[in-house]
């Protein structure tokens, strides 16, 4: 257990230490959202209709950004070999990496999501739900994304490949996350969507590390 906390602290420090941590993802998130009014027109009525949904779309895209470095860095400098030989099981290492990805990327993005959504014209009463759904959804995005990151180890086209592998798997969290907000905005019952979103996030958290560890062992063999 001690090894796990060391891993988690290390991953957090690495994420913040080099490359400014979540700043890149946040900037990308804001930049994507900025292009939306330019693409569909700035009329408030039109923007307000798509605001929560497009905030979720930008969130899914922004959470892809730092995935490439999640395993690649350790794979290239040989740290992953040592981790695989060490006393902490590779599954726990993968879990720590996924969790760190969520804490350093998903959580800041979840804080930014309501701001972006409101800037695009979402109503203020949606703010708490947008934050919560982005936070819970981020868990699913981090752990599903981690599988793609681990699988693409050893390939030459890291970033784009991860996006191709992972984006189809992002369909359920995007549907449930945006669905909860839309249901709430429409005065419908939003609990089922949020429950399903949480279920997806927890299932990804529980199963993802095993797939990640298997993929890492394969890349290292």
């Amino acid at each position, binding site marked *: 257990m001690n090894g796990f906390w060391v891993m988690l602290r290390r991953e957090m420090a690495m994420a913040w230490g080099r490359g400014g941590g979540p700043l890149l993802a946040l900037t990308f998130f804001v930049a994507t959202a900025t292009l939306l009014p330019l693409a569909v027109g700035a009329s408030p009525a039109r923007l307000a209709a798509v605001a929560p949904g497009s905030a979720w779309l930008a969130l899914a895209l922004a959470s892809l950004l730092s995935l490439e470095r999640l395993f690649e860095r350790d794979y290239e400098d040989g740290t992953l070999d040592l981790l695989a030989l060490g006393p902490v099981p590779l599954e726990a290492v993968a879990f720590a990496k996924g969790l760190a990805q969520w804490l350093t990327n998903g959580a800041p993005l979840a804080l930014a999501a309501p701001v972006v959504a409101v800037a695009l014209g979402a109503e203020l009463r949606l703010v708490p739900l947008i934050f919560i759904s982005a936070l819970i959804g981020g868990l699913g995005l981090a752990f599903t994304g981690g*599988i793609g990151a681990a*699988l693409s180890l050893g*390939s*030459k086209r890291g970033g784009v490949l991860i996006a*191709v*592998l992972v984006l189809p798997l992002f*369909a359920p969290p995007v549907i449930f996350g945006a669905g909860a907000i839309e249901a709430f905005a429409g005065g419908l019952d939003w609990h089922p969507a949020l429950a399903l979103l949480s279920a997806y996030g927890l299932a990804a958290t529980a*199963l993802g590390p095993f*797939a990640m560890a*298997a993929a890492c062992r394969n890349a290292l063999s």
Partner: protein
Amino acid sequence: MFQALANPQRFMDFSRWAAPLVGIIAVILITVGLWLSFIVPEDYQMGDTVRMVFIHVPAAYMAMFCYACLGGASFMGLVFRHSLADAAGRACAPLGAGFTFLALVTGSLWGRPMWGTWWAWDARMTSVLVLLLLYIGYMALQAAIDDEVKAARAASILALVGLINLPIIKFSVDWWNTLHQPASVFRAGGPSMPPDYLWPLALMAIGYMALFGSLWMVRVRSEVWRKRANGLALQAAG
């Protein structure tokens, strides 16, 4: 049967005559099925376009069947480490992607006269589109890693992740669709299928299966040959 055929030599002996035989069966079934589908009477509602059913529905069915085969081959490859299972997965993906693409294209061509639109974000269409993306991801991953064994294992893991995710995606898309309440472009209910239509549909479905089986064996054979050729080339290079 799987145990016996896992031996590459035995598989090669078996598929040498099985692949062409199944292929001939496929040609006969599809020919008869196509002929029947052209002589069945028109549908009173859909007119001549009803004939699309016989090409479209089996393709959509095969799109999912191929992914099940891909998942099965990936599981065998990961758990039992049969090299033939890796070859089978590799050989299966483009066929499945082909059937999925055929299902999407024929569906789109059919949608134009029947619903007046090439594409609707209907639950079923959306999840088939995601299925196509999963196939493409599998092939992209396999192509991106140089080491063949590693590529096969990584792609197998992805296929199993996709296999777990497919029902979730299907469910979520269905759920999303009921939430959105789309304009009802689909005729509600409709007549249950008369036996006139059932026969060509069944023949086409079995024909597609046979076609897939035959092509699959041919592709696995060529994988085995390719590996042998690579081995010989390495030997010759000393």
